[in-house]
């Protein structure tokens, strides 16, 4: 049975997109697929928000894009991370990690109290 799908928390879509793109130049469709595969179908990008988010990131110079041919010979828009995007990714990833640690700590503390 598939795990129940979870909506993305506010502001995390950008982070995930930056992370996926960081792995190498990639086009929109592949990004969507990879997101779904990596999260094992748990994370669901809201309908119609992928491309606006990509364009927004491109607009803020966190992503850059080039038109290149795919393996099948079609032209597609490939996104890659800019230097600014990499910095942003590192900063956001670090802050997420801190948040996760803190939440884990709080949840663990409740258990410890019962022990």
């Amino acid at each position: 049975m598939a795990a129940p799908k979870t909506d993305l928390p506010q502001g995390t879509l950008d982070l995930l997109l930056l992370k996926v793109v960081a792995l190498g130049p990639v086009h929109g469709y592949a990004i969507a697929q990879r997101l779904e595969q990596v999260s094992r179908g748990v994370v669901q990008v809201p309908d119609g928000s992928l491309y606006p988010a990509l364009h927004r990131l491109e607009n803020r110079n966190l992503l850059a894009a080039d038109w290149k041919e795919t393996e099948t010979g079609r032209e597609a828009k490939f996104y890659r991370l800019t230097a600014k995007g990499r910095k942003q990714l590192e900063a956001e990833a670090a802050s997420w990690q801190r948040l996760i640690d803190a939440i884990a700590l709080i949840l663990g503390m409740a258990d410890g109290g019962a022990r």
Partner: protein
Amino acid sequence: MNWWQRLWRRKKMEEQLEKELRFHIDEHVNELIARGHAPELAQRNARLALGGPEQVKEKCRDARGTRWLEDLFQDFRYALRTLRQRPGFATVAILALALGSGATTVMFTVINGVLLKPLAYPEADRLVTLHGKTEKYGEQWGFSYPEFHDYQSTGRTLRSVAAWTYAGGTVTGPGAAEYLFGRHISSGLFSVLGISPVEGRAFLPQEDQLGAAPVAVISCGLWQRRFGGRPETIGQQIVVDGKSYTIVGIAPVGLRLDGESDIYTPLGQSTDPRMRNRGAFFIHVLGRLQPNVTLAQAQTELSVIARQLATQYPEDNQGRDMVAHPLSQEVVGDVRPTLWLLLGAVSLVLLIACVNVASLLLARAVSRQRELAMRVALGASRGRLVRQCLTESSVLGISGGALGILLTFVSIRPFVSLWPGSLPRAENVQLDWRVLLFALGVSLLSSVLFGLAPAWRTPARELERWHRGGARSLVGNTRRLHSGFVVAEVALAVVLLVSAGILGRTLLRLSSLDPGFDTQNVLVAHVALSPAVLESPAKARAAWDDVLDRARRFPGVQSVALADVVPMRVGDDSVGYWATPVQPPPEQTPLALTSIVTPEYLNVMGIALRRGRFLNDQDRIGHEVVVVIDDNLAQHAFAGSDPVGKPLWLQGMASNPAKIVGVVGHVRHWGLAGDDQSRVRDQIYVSFYQLPDPLVSFLSSVMSITVRTNISPWNVAEPLRRELRGPGSDQTLYDNHTMDELLRASLDRQRFLLWLFGIFAGLALLLACIGIYGVLTYLTNQRVPEIGLRMALGARARDVMRLVVAQSLAMIVGGIGVGILGALAAGRLLQHLVDGMRPTDLSTFAIMIPILLAAALFASLIPARRASRVDPISALRQE
């Protein structure tokens, strides 16, 4: 890529967006097919998974950040296109707005130049004028010259003070004889105002006293005219009234002390007997506030000084306070309320124009429901629709505004020249950046005003529902708004119509008033005697006799007399009087306007003699001093008993009383409109031939000649001027007027306001009728199916017409109701601001409202007739 490139390469970006999304869908479809989905289903699922290509595109465009600008261009082009499709609508709307904003901008241009721009002196807001004030006669007083010195030595809140008074004289050299207006000024005047002479220097303190060497500063105009603008003019002589002055400076163009003046001389050198009289309040005082001192502080100090003077000199100063006002207020005078009143009136016209365009736009917006709903379905947000509506209205508003600026540009000069009397600071009235900013602001503000209503009427949610239901669910909602528009338009039109009506009635009433004398065929002019004769009173008397003799014998002249003040012309001379031997305290002494005349004056002016006799040739020096009084004084001082033969004491004229020998009718000296409101309404006539010598010398420089003619007075004016040039060819006649002209001018302000309000009211009525017609046409169109149904059920054409007219009548009556309240308020305002206005009377309403009702009903008749011809079959089918 910066935002400009993104904007520039819009088309390319659109293509790329399309390509990117197509690639995504194609890939997805391929994959789904590979997994075994049917091709059509795969296509559908792929599109759904993406979230609808068109909506995604919209969001991507939003993400670009240049969206607003692209939309603006798009909306702008779209607005132009839709407006071009309906040129009639666009023309009416733009013309209405152009008239509204043009009229408003004209008024603002005048207000900007006259009221808002600072005076041409540095730190002009620190300049104040000082006045005397008594309870009975208000703030119309100046200072006495000794008072000016008292203030100068004790006042601390003003950094410096200066004084001036009117002067003038005949210049005889260099060049031909010419009478010039001038001013006596104290030595500090230039430094108080913060200006310096263009050439030379201002007066020194030691020149500002009796016996000092005669010096003069002349105006730039005179410098150019008589001296060719040469710098060597400084140090040269100018002969005024026979006395030679050394020119020490040239005054800058910006110097203005109540009107034009060509020659300035030191006040302290004036030999005017009033200079030493503490009871002669003829000096104008102005000063500059110390830094960090407020007007209120200066005022407090002035009151303290006034109280000290009152204890020190009770005879002249008891009950006399002193007040300070900003100089700008005095320069502008009573024009200020008129200007604001007119701006208010044109704003009403603009408001009507806005309401009008709003109702037209709303009608259009509702008939475009289908289009708007389609836009929502294609992904337009509500904000986007509102913005689009506002862009459309801004295009209208700005076009109207631009046309309005053009109107202002064309009409501002004629408008200023039509201003009754002379508009103070008229030279400052120009189109400048402030005016342009104002016009832009007005057109944008009005665009929002009339664009917002239709914009808010297109909520996306309701549109969607409407689209799904396919029903006319929005129509009911707008009916109330449309009625609101009509009510507002009618109400505003009522305010302007009734105001115009009140002004018209006032003008009629004032024009029918008896001025108290016969204004036909009377010429009045100042006479400047030859400077040679002014030195001795005996010579002056002889010169006047000569002037009268020559004028009397002149062809076309019936009778001729001298007078120091002339009715309805600038200038007056008030003197305190009392009819019992004990002089009342100064603040309670009644004032009378005193005219010093020669006996023929009664005939020249055609004033009615009520009792006794007028002054005659036997009333001379050495005989009993006599006076003639008017109805008003007789009523006030003698209340019913016969004043003829009774004594009358006049302040400062003689210690013995004068004998009253006659009573004449009251003359409306302050103009037809102003006389009833003026504080000094009693009148006294004194014979010129009974004046003591010093007064003759003084008055000889201000006397006027009044001439009754058999032919048109203008035909006499010029030959008479030549005839009276005198033996030395240096006697001049200036400031010529006919009494008819002065009489007309006394109502200029009322007439001017009536014209403007009449035009505004006409415009308002026209706009309101267009509005009513438009709204009713629209509402009736919406009711076509209902009307068809009614007719199918047996209603006749007459019933349908009644139905439509009743609907319109309800709106009009509502508007009239609101308008009457507004008109009452406007009437009170007018009564406050315009001389001679009476409280709003019912008859004005009784005349004006039927006019409006008739016009409004006429405007609603056309849609009503059209509705009554609805074909029930096709109307029902339309449903």
